[in-house]
């Protein structure tokens, strides 16, 4: 079929050419093929490929966005982690310094307390000593007085006569003091 057509092509290039060609070649089929194919392509572009490409592009965009978002959130979480780590370190340092301070404070307080207690003890000891001394003096004085009274009583019994207590008391006390000194 084609060999003939080409012989025809070379031999017959005049006005009757197309008509003669039409006898051997279905020129109508050529037109129908082109029209059908173009129509198919246009329809498919409108109804099938267009929407499909749209969805595929949309998906590509979505994936790109998701990747970007993931990258961003990763960076953000890393930043937060760093922040938290810094905060934690700061808190730890703070706690350590607080503990240190407290210990120091406690120590000084203890020293103070000990010093105060010691001073108190000293003071109490001193006052006690003082008190003991006064008590003793008081006791000595009381004993002495009792002794004087007894002496007077005894003397008055011995002498058998009433002597003026006031006159003799001075005398006796003097005697006792002398006696005390003499002892």
């Amino acid at each position, binding site marked *: *079929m*084609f060999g003939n057509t080409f012989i025809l092509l070379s031999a017959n290039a005049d006005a009757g050419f197309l*008509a003669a060609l*039409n*006898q051997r*070649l*279905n*020129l*109508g*089929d*050529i*037109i*129908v*093929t*082109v029209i*059908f*194919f173009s*129509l*198919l*392509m246009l*329809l*498919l*572009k409108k*109804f*099938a*490929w267009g*929407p*499909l*490409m*749209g*969805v*595929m592009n*949309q*998906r590509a965009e*979505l994936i790109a966005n998701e990747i970007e978002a993931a990258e961003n959130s990763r960076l953000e979480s890393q930043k937060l982690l760093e922040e938290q780590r810094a905060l934690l370190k700061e808190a730890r340092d703070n706690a350590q310094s607080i503990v240190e301070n407290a210990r120091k404070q406690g120590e000084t307080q203890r020293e103070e307390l000990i010093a105060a207690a010691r001073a108190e003890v000293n003071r109490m000891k001193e006052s006690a000593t003082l008190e003991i001394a006064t008590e003793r003096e008081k006791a000595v004085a009381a004993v002495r007085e009792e002794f004087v009274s007894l002496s007077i009583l005894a003397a008055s019994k011995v002498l058998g006569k009433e002597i003026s207590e006031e006159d003799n008391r001075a005398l006796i006390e003097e005697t006792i003091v002398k006696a005390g000194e003499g002892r």
Partner: protein
Amino acid sequence: MNHDNPSFEFLGLSFNPSNILMLFVTCLVVFLIAFIATRNLQMKPTGMQNFMEWVMDFVKGIIKNNMDWKDGGRFHVLGITLIMFVFVANMLGLPFAIVWDHELWWKSPTADPVITLTLASMVVVLTHYYGVKQLGTKGYFKTYLQPMPFLAPLKVIEEFANTLTLGLRLYGNIFAGEILIGLLAGLGASSIFGLIGAAIPAIAWLGFSVFIGSIQAFIFVMLTMVYMSHKVSSDH
């Protein structure tokens, strides 16, 4: 095996109604497949949508093998339509052929040289159109002088050779496949021994024809993109 083709004349042009019928069936099948597959499109593709996306990516791969996506993106729709069309056309003639009144009605439309050469010519004309559009008239004619000016006549011949080989390769493969299927079917129908003898070769040849049909569809689209890239890319 020698069937006549039906024909009629309209407006002084002769038509082969069998070709028209088969082209229409092909278009219908392709359209229905694509249309049904792209209903209910989802971000997470399922079923048929996966298949159509695979086809799209496949054609995209073919284009990217030959040129920049920047240049080639506009041929994506052409490529997908072409590969589906040629593949379905190749497959249509495989299951059976219908002969009515000694006239062959059901066959592969690509088993007719008029149709394959029309497709090939359409593709080549499109390459020239996009060549001029992309490079400008001056740049377009300059491509004929490269790599050497004295090779220009060969470049002109190449254009016609491309058209012929592109169309006739497809036609030859499919037509030969149909002839052999017809022969084997005739043998199988002749007698019980013929049926036994023809069964295994017929099945083998049908499988091979499916393979050839797919390969030819792929080659057709691939060569289309190769020719396009020769005309469109400035670095060639």
